[in-house]
């Protein structure tokens, strides 16, 4: 059962019962929980010191925001993957977390095996999509397309990617989607991954532009 090179995980949650429970579950199943944190600032600081492969992030951290923590962690550790594990189910928060760089989302009621599989997938660099998250991402692309922004640089997804996202949102597994669209399930995964990546890049570009504009305005 001892994995010579276990996945390193950090658990960020403001509820001690939950935090310790999840940490123990993962530890018992052969992962290495290198740190836990209860708020956004501590999460960023401790992550920088312990460099976990995967951060399990609650979005509702008392007075602080998990979304800010995600951005802070990824800025210092671009190789780290963030999996949102949230009870809030707050759809706008989840979308913001994904735009900030989280590559997956799971509700807290997910079973231990489901959680374990999600952490492993996240560590391997695959997105963890629930149908609900696919619906949010799909809606966001639609909103960006409808937005009358003069810049014309809003990210767009291809017809194929839209088709794949739609099927994910309707609850089909990657394998089922592959069968239906005659694609390998790897291809399906990469389509899903692309939709996330483009959204995150757009978000980062916007932040950079905002920073530049603010900087110029300050002169």
């Amino acid at each position, binding site marked *: 059962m001892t994995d010579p090179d276990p996945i390193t995980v950090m658990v960020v949650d403001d*509820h001690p*019962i*939950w935090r310790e*429970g999840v940490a123990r*579950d993962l530890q018992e199943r052969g992962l290495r929980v290198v740190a836990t944190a209860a708020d956004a600032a501590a999460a960023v600081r401790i992550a920088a010191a312990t460099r976990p492969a995967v951060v399990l992030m609650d979005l*509702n951290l008392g007075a602080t925001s998990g979304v800010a923590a995600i951005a802070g962690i990824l800025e210092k550790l671009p190789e780290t993957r963030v999996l949102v594990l949230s*009870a*809030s*189910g*707050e*759809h*706008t928060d*989840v*979308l913001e977390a994904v735009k900030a760089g989280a590559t997956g989302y799971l*509700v*807290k*009621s*997910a*079973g*231990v095996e489901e959680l374990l599989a999600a952490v492993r997938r996240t560590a391997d660099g695959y997105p963890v999509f*629930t*149908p*609900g*998250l*696919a*619906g*949010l991402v*799909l*809606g*966001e692309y*639609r*909103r960006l*397309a*409808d937005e009358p922004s003069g810049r014309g640089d809003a990210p767009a997804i291809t017809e194929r990617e839209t088709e794949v996202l*739609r099927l994910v*949102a*309707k*609850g089909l597994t990657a394998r089922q989607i592959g069968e239906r669209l005659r694609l390998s399930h790897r291809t399906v995964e990469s389509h899903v991954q692309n939709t996330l990546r483009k959204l995150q890049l757009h978000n980062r570009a916007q932040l950079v532009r905002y920073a530049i504009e603010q900087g110029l305005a300050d002169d």
Partner: protein
Amino acid sequence: MSTPATVDPQQPLRPLWRGLLVYRVLALVSAAVVVLGSLAAYRSAAGAVAVLMVMAGWTALSGYAYLRAAARGRIAIADLAVTVAVMASTPLVQTPAQVAADAPVMGSIWTPGAVLACALAYGVRGGLLGALAVSATLLAVQARPQTELGDIQLIVLVGLTVGFAATVLRRQAERLRRAIAAEAAARERERLARAVHDGVLQVLGLLRRRGGELGGDAAQLGRLAGEQEFALRALLTSGPAAADEQGRRDLAAALRTLATARTSVATPAHPVELPAPVVDELVAAVGAALTNVSTHVGPDAPAWVLLEDVGTALEISVRDEGPGISDGRLEAAAAAGRIGVARSMRGRVHDVGGTISCDTGPDGTEWIITLPREAHP
């Protein structure tokens, strides 16, 4: 004097009481000038000055009480009594010649102050009562009543309008006070609810996970906890989706309330607004499809709902992975007169200008509701 820009819900009439005091003082000065200017003509100059001093003393005393907001009602009644007494002193201090020559009664323009005070304290009824008392006294001490008709009309008018204004202001302030209190209570409740619910969600989630691991009865408990967790989360994140002033509601939020442990609901993050009755019909149609899944596929059978805004239309998909609906089952149910899927879904969707199609096979069933945007711009 600082004038508050908005109505103070605790003291809505405060500016009006201040105004009354200003009027009182100006009227007192003018009455004093009139009396002192023709003091020689009075039957009793000392009496006239004494009445002036009573007026000045009472103006100060009542003004102090009015500003302190202490027993305004009783002071206003006393005010009326003092005013009537001042007026009633007219035959004692003025000569019959003065009275006959239509000299102003004692108090003159100072007297409506008491009417204003009654109106502010007791509303329309107070204003009217004060006006009647002052008018009656005026008629009693004045030789030629017909010349006073204009004054009486003015006094009654002032009593009525100021009384009405006071009543309206007071009612508005009461409403404002209640609204502020309700808002504060709602905010506090929301804050408490967030804290409590977050904790409850954590525990329910933990119960569900642990229960699942332990198996047996614990698994059953865990499953129940999971259902409650979903119900609570749906309630918290969507709230009781209320219609806005234009009678529109967010279809996405309304659909999210249908999410359960076995039903996934995917929607855009931004609101999808439609007239509230249309939202009700669509949610009911989706609910009927989900009920159909639990009846015909199984109570634990998973189902997926997707709301998509495809620009020219809204599309709602309800999918399950059951054995499919056999040919003719829907028609048979309708023919047998049962309120089946056919009637409750198709009827509702057609009523709001949409179309519904069903794709069914051995791998499952998918209902697709399409609502053209132009049906409800």
